[in-house]
């Protein structure tokens, strides 16, 4: 099946240079005009205006969450925030293409994808408030915990897909298409240089596991521009491993949605892995600890303002007759969400170190028990004068 589409669509080694203008799939142009492309009809036919409004709601919620995250960090309520502004279409378009039985491996910036998987947004903030390394339940959401060691999760995704493959052995095509599971691995342009990405693609090709590699090429890895990682568009890589790939306008939610549905269908129905390169832009800082003025120009950033994914979808929706009342309602909705989020985040209880002791091993471990006993006794020794204090200040005052 991918033969039909991919025969015309896969962008192969003819692409050279790292020009972000290199061809990609686009179904909504920056001014919001719908571009007809029969090749993708199958994957957009049922995406009506109502569905697009749903995407808009998700994208607006994602952006509001992002702004709130940055604000909370600035106010000292989060230890760090990882903004995703500009990548909403790539994340909502792909996340909304997944099915409940799928399992997704994000990096650390996929808050939008998390929303599509039903992760409670406030839970996500637990990671960035420094009270949890995980934050949400990966098993119940099919959305894995964030992996901060770049690219490590791409191998986990392939292994998970190898498991899915085994579980679905002997299934008929129809059953696969309806109930089959697929796996997604999200990674960045910078992470694509890590050896783990190479190995994951080797394993995926070798095993034909049902995995979709989704690279958000947001042009930057902290301060390092994409050209340092690759001389050609990343989409070219797949040809070397022997599986199909597609380059898509990552700021076009409809196009991202269509290609991801196609890729998941390939994986789901036993046709092996697919690579998607979503061309997008990190409009904000790398994290709240980063200062992009050190390495890129305002001019470059402005060039991407006009391609903003929300702006584009808004233009399209308005042209199709969606009025102010809709956008106002979305604004109210997201404001309410942000207020709740803030209240929940501020009310999180500070965990005790005991919880960390409890989660080192799944079964009792004598050394952990011994150290926990020591720790409790030690803490109890402060009962009179209050709990053992954080003495870092005292040291630093020296």
């Amino acid at each position, binding site marked *: 099946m991918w033969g039909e589409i991919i025969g015309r669509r896969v962008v192969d080694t003819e692409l050279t240079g790292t020009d972000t203008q290199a061809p990609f799939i686009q179904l909504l142009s920056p001014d919001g005009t719908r571009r007809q492309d029969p090749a993708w009809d199958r994957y957009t036919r049922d995406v009506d205006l109502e569905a697009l409004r749903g995407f808009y709601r998700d994208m607006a919620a994602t952006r509001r969450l992002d702004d709130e995250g940055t604000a909370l960090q600035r106010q000292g309520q989060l*230890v*760090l925030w990882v903004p995703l502004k500009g990548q909403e279409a790539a994340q909502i378009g792909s996340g909304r293409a997944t099915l409940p039985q799928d399992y997704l491996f994000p990096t650390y910036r996929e808050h939008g994808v998390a929303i599509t998987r039903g992760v409670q947004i406030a839970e996500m903030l637990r*990671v*960035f*408030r*420094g*009270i*949890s*390394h995980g934050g949400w339940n990966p098993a119940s959401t099919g959305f894995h915990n964030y992996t*901060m*060691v*770049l*690219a490590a999760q791409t191998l986990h995704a392939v292994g998970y897909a190898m498991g899915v493959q085994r579980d679905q052995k002997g299934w008929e095509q129809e059953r696969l298409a309806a109930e089959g599971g697929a796996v997604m691995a999200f990674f960045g342009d*910078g*992470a694509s*240089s*890590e*050896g*783990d990405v190479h190995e994951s693609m080797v394993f995926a090709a070798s095993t034909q596991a049902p995995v979709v590699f989704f690279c958000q090429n947001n042009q930057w*890895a*902290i*301060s*390092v521009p994409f050209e*340092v*990682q690759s001389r050609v568009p990343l989409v070219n890589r797949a040809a070397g491993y022997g599986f199909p790939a597609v380059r898509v306008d990552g700021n076009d939610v409809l196009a991202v949605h269509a290609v991801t549905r196609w890729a998941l269908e390939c994986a789901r129905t036993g046709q092996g892995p697919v690579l998607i390169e979503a061309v997008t832009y990190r409009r904000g800082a790398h994290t709240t*600890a*980063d200062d992009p003025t*050190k*390495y890129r120009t305002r001019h470059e950033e402005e060039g991407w303002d006009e391609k903003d994914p929300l702006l584009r979808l808004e233009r399209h929706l308005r042209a199709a007759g969606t009025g102010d009342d809709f956008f106002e309602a979305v604004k109210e909705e997201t404001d309410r969400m942000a207020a709740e989020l803030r209240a929940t985040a501020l009310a999180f209880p*500070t*965990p*005790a*170190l005991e*919880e*960390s*002791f409890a989660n*080192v091993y799944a079964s009792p*471990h004598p*050394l*952990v028990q011994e*150290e926990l006993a020591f*720790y409790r006794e*030690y*803490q109890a*020794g*402060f009962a009179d004068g209050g709990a*053992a*204090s*954080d*003495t*870092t200040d*005292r*040291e*630093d005052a*020296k």
Partner: protein
Amino acid sequence: MTMAKAINAGLRRVLAEDPKTLLMGEDIGKLGGVYRITEGLQAEFGEDRVVDSPLAESGIIGTSIGLALRGYRPIAEIQFDGFVFPGFNQITTQLAKLHMRSEGVLTVPVTIRIPFGGGIGSVEHHSESPEALFAHTAGLRIMTPSTPHDAYWMIQEAVASPDPVIFFEPKRRYWLKGDVDTEHRAAPAASAQVVRQGSDATVVAWGPLVPVALAAAQAAQEDGRDVEVIDLRSLSPIDFDTITASAQKTGRLVVMHEAPTFGGLGGEIAARVTERAFYSLQAPVLRLGGFHMPYPPSKVEANYLPDIDRLLEALDRSFAH
């Protein structure tokens, strides 16, 4: 000057003095590193000498080895302690072993700078102390400064070493200020320094915990206990002579590090000192470190990290003997 500036100045000096030196790492060029340790160096020495590499630690270390084999002196930066592991294979199976494999013919003078340690309120993988994993590997030298003056000189010593050096930078002390004498060389890293004289007990610490040990010694003084503090500086080799002499004098020894106690360097020091000074010791050598767990979320790190109170408690236990 701050420790960050001191390392920067040390690197500037080696770049200026030895045309074969070069810096490689993620974000170290234009940005000057996420901690700005290499700030201004690319502008001054050019992109050939200060390289913003592709994002791959095995690549950074593996190509550093190749450059060293070709006569260069690469100084690689790993962005955070927790991100060295994709390059761990290159460090332990190649960097550490090439000299022996080549029957002494080849040297691989690579320096690997790693900001390490916790107490900075960060997310996972940004606060670890993996020094024991490297100290266990023969063929590597390991150093960590605790003052700007030492940082300035020790980074130069690391680069000059014909052996590979892992240079651990105590990131929570990057902003620690101190005088740097750029004329007079610090003592070689291999010699531990007694940074506070005392007669009742000895504390051995390094990197980020030296100021903690000094503050605890100060507090102990108020209780009439005279605590000696040793800044280890080199974690491989370890200056056992200085530690043993101090333990023989005071009769009590506590070794403190941020890394988990189990399997940590404290155990090695305790064992060696016990072998050498058994009859002078009045109490078992005590170890104080992190707990046996992955570094916890930052909101609870203050309870995880050894601090002044934990050290005073350990000293109490030592004095109870």
